[in-house]
């Protein structure tokens, strides 16, 4: 079938191929390509921070303490005092657990990162207002001043998310997200505390302090009642619940602190920085406060609950570019057609490819080499280098190396460089000299079992450092260093 040279018929063909039952084109949910450092469970319904070990500790402490109370103290108290005690205790316990799960598992108010068009538009605006800066010089931190209810507030630009942060938003370095009305990152809860889950967090610590005081009081009552009959030390032995005195007071103290914050409509972040403290200036006041304590409390606890902005269970649209997170924290945008062909392993390779492409083009001006991460092909590894601009180099990887990491790919790239070494540089000035200690010519990343395997497979194409000139070595190190981020 002959196609005209016009673009639209080819476009037509490509669209048809894309939508017709290719196994890679099944719909994927957006949480799979979320750029922040969060963990998702239950197909995107539950999200937490990456390090959630302390959350399990919290869970354990609460359950063990409550469990011991219900097991050892409640029977005595229910029979001797009133059965309402375990009932109230039970209700409090379930409320605490509910609030904890709600605070830990919900989206704290994450701001999605800017789309490429938005980011470009902002850059243009900033460039026109600042004037052009010299290449390679990092511009000063970008801020915008805004007058909020008469108070001057600086909006900062987030280089990771490529947005100007709204007032009261902050970038959490642990989760790598900008969060609206950022309070703090709580390791006990295993999540950031922000606009959407602050009330759950507050209700959690409030109800937990009530629960711990409740348990503490009734354990003491139990001990006293028993000691009337048996003696104090014996009673203590039979009541093994020892609620840590300090943890009670720390939780109660934290509730008190957050009650103060809510009544003055401040976040922990603002309070610690002293943003609205009168020490900063006589005219410094909190522009977000509603004026009265009751209104502030009602607004924080009973105000409307905004929806999540990140749409984690939505499906990725085939045409929209999605961010592919690189390990250095920035993102690279690819379309889902490309993305769906990648598993995590190749995601790394693909993003490495972009970095190499960017780095390689000015250096290998006659033979830019791009390593394309393709699917596994059985058979001998062979490297074919082409001359010409931006031609993908197909590297077939033997299926016997399932654990091939980026390191192996990089080594393969360096072998390709060995091929192209005669075509590289016109002048030493063009090569970058990265400021790092000289790297060993063999594998960079510690566990690369495939590296030696690769070198066995092409004996004639071994990377032989002795035959390289120093300039080439430097540039290769530079490329490899760039790709190893």
């Amino acid at each position, binding site marked *: 079938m002959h196609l*005209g040279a016009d673009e639209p018929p080819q476009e037509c063909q490509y*669209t048809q191929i894309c939508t017709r039952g290719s196994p890679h084109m099944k719909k994927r949910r957006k949480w799979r390509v979320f750029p922040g450092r969060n963990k998702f469970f239950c197909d995107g319904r539950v999200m937490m921070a990456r390090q959630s070990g302390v959350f399990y500790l919290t869970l354990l402490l609460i359950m063990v303490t409550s469990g011991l109370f219900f097991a050892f103290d409640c029977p005595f108290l229910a029979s001797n005092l009133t059965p309402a005690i375990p009932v109230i205790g039970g209700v409090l316990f379930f409320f605490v657990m509910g609030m904890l799960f709600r605070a830990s598992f919900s989206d704290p108010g994450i*701001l999605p990162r800017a789309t490429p068009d*938005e980011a470009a*538009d902002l850059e243009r605006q900033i460039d026109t207002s600042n004037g052009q800066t010299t290449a390679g010089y990092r511009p000063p931190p970008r801020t915008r001043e805004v007058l909020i209810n008469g108070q001057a507030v600086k909006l900062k630009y987030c280089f990771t998310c490529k947005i100007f942060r709204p*007032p009261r938003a902050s970038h959490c370095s642990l989760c790598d997200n900008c969060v609206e009305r950022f309070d703090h990152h709580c390791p006990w809860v295993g999540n950031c505390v922000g606009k959407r889950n602050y009330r759950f967090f507050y209700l959690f610590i409030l109800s937990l302090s009530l629960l711990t005081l409740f348990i503490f009081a009734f354990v003491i009552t139990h001990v006293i009642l028993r000691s009337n009959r048996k003696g104090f030390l014996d009673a203590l032995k039979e009541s093994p619940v020892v609620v840590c005195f300090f943890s009670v007071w720390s939780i109660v103290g934290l509730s008190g602190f957050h009650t103060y914050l809510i009544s003055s409509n401040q976040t922990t972040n603002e309070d610690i920085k002293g943003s609205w403290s009168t020490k900063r200036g006589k005219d410094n006041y909190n522009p*977000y406060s509603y004026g009265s304590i009751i209104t502030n409390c009602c607004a924080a606890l*009973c*105000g*409307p609950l905004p929806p999540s902005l990140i749409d984690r269970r939505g499906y990725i649209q085939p045409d929209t570019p999605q961010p592919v997170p690189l390990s250095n924290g920035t993102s690279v945008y690819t379309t889902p057609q490309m993305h769906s062909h990648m598993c995590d392993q190749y995601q790394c390779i693909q993003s490495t490819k972009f970095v190499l492409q960017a780095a390689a083009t000015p250096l290998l001006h006659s033979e830019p080499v791009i390593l394309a991460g393709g699917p596994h092909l059985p058979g001998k590894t062979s490297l074919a280098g082409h001359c010409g601009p931006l031609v993908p180099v197909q590297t077939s990887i033997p299926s016997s190396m399932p654990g091939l990491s980026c390191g192996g790919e990089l080594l393969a790239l360096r072998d390709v460089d060995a091929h192209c070494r005669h075509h590289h540089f016109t002048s030493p000035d063009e090569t970058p000299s990265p400021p790092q200690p000289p790297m060993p010519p063999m594998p960079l990343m510690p566990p690369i079992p495939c590296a030696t395997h690769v070198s066995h497979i092409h004996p004639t194409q071994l990377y032989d450092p002795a035959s390289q000139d120093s300039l080439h070595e430097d540039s290769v190190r530079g490329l490899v260093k760039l790709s190893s981020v």
Partner: protein
Amino acid sequence: MRSAPRTAARRTTLPFYHQSFHNLQELRHNASLSNKVFVQRDYTEGTVCKFQTKFPSELDSRIERTLFEDTVKTLNNYYAEAEKIGGQSYLEGCLACATAYLIFLCMETRYEKVLKKISHYIQEQNEKIYAPRGLLITDPIERGMRVIEISIYEDRGSSGSSSGSSSTTCSSGR
């Protein structure tokens, strides 16, 4: 004559597949995206969701100032209604707290109801006012409530007809 498979394939991937949005589909097919304008947030009243009503210069030749300002002001009013702190929101909040927030499994929050209204309003505005002028408004919720994105389309008039004829010859040649 436009080739049927392409339209059908594209139709299934468009988010608003409905007979009445035929105009918007035609807009996306016939026109090419030339520029995007971003209307930023207005923070002078705090963190409430409000967009600037300043008229972007790129839209100068495309749409009347008053129409644009009306759209933005209506959107601002909707968002203010969603975030209003008053009797109804307190009632909803207290009821939710009393049921340990389980009530939201059955019921929508007021904010979500207003967001649906906003979405319908934007679709209606696109159909009636913006698409005929070669513009398209993207719902701010899809951009994290940071901006109102207005896409400007250039009409591909003459090039559209030539591509149509070549695809006809292509299909007849099979």
